[in-house]
């Protein structure tokens, strides 16, 4: 096929649909460049990440879309939109959606390397504390101060009782 602007071989084929009107263009690379037919996009990391997150959930999307973290209240779709997780517990809750993503970003889904030697609490206990902390936050926002005081005391007791011999752990 020949380029529409000159007689060289067309190597760029563009189809655009605007308001239901389909138009086709066939250009050689020089004319395409001159007519700005190819948009050189800048490298946009958040957009790429967003794309990756979207691509790799596939059919799981429906199930994932309904997921909400019980600890921080973040929904899976919210994570997809923002590209940032809400709390550490999200990694467990959104695991099915995260693993393919991690595979794409890092070509791996398992940590190798340094591991903390001191761990005061199980992940479950940490998630409970976090959930309690979020409840406290909502109580304060809603000016439910009695409830807030109750939650604050509960949080303190739980933190203290979990610490079993590690007074400085938090």
């Amino acid at each position: 096929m020949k380029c529409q602007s000159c007689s060289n071989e067309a190597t760029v084929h563009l189809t655009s649909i605007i308001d239901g009107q389909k138009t086709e263009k066939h250009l050689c690379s020089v004319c395409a460049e001159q007519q700005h037919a190819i948009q050189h996009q800048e490298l946009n990391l958040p957009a790429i990440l967003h794309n990756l997150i979207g691509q790799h959930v596939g059919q799981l999307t429906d199930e994932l879309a309904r997921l909400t973290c019980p600890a921080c209240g973040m929904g899976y779709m919210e994570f997809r939109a923002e590209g940032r997780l809400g709390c550490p517990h999200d990694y467990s809750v959104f695991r099915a959606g995260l693993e393919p993503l991690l595979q794409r970003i890092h070509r791996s889904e398992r940590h190798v390397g340094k591991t903390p030697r001191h761990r005061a609490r199980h992940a479950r206990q940490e998630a409970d504390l976090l959930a309690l902390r979020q409840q406290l936050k909502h109580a304060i926002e809603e000016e439910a101060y009695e409830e807030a005081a109750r939650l604050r005391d509960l949080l303190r007791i739980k933190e203290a009782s979990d610490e079993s011999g590690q007074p400085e752990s938090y």
Partner: protein
Amino acid sequence: MNLDSLSRTSGEWLRGTGPESDIVISGRIRLARNLAAFPFTNRANAYQKTEIEALLRDRIGKLELDPRLEYINLVNLSTIDRQFLVERQLISRELASADGPRGVALMDKETVSLMVNEEDHLRLQVMRSGFALDEAWQDIDRVDDLLEQRVSYAFHEDFGYLTACPTNVGTGMRASVMLHLPALVWTKQIEKVFRALQKINLAVRGLYGEGSRPAGDFYQISNQVTLGKSETTILGEIRDVIPQIISYERQAREALLREGRQALQDKISRAKGTLSSATMMTSEETMDLLSSVRLGVNLRLLDDINISTLNELFIHTQPAHLQKLMGASLDGEERNAARAQYLRTRLREGDANPN
């Protein structure tokens, strides 16, 4: 800590000592860590951020480090002082411009900085002049160990250290080496080097990190992958590739000397001429010209400027440093005039005291 007294020195990363320091400026390692029982910074409200800051500040204060760390509350700091810390690479641009309670703990040698309430609750950073990533790792590993005894980090058996962004999860480690590569830029080979690095999953960034332009021909090479490779493996991959880049840069320098010595000498002398006589200088032009002069000194085409003076000028002519040195807040035009005057004075001193 007296930031004004810091402003008169060049800081750790531009100290200009250490192995291969004509090309390798500095090495830096950053670890991302979060508290297990709190939402990530972006999801925490002001009250929770205050709690996180108070907790980390307290624990950091108890670390048995020598010399001790000093904590700076960034909310109370002026915009110029925050920008000043960014220019010295002690805090990130994100932390400088973020909202809400946040701070940084610094060691007075400026090798260690712990950022609180960045994108992650804690970003530990160690910086070393020259090519010394292993020493940087030993330092940061130790600080991390000490902190881990006092706070409960968010860690998952399978995913490692948990971070707000999944691109940092696993080791949470970003190691980078800052290189001065003027000859590769001039001989237009730098793109080729970048493409080769990208193939092996290493990122290339400008002087002030993501999105910044490579002012003064300074480039940071860092790892992309944080999951599935140990810290030692990642550091080894960077350590292996840097000598190759150094050798490309040296070859490009030799080629410039061999094939265009006069043009090179002319470019470098003009750069020095402009720096020592102009009356208005932007920060960008200054960086580009200083880069030429730095290359000239390293190739012994110029012998009347001390390399440490030169390194100092790179940082002293940055907007916030300049304003602190002048002791006044200056607008763009005033800065350009003050910068030109400062450069003229410093370069004349250099003429008077050759090394």
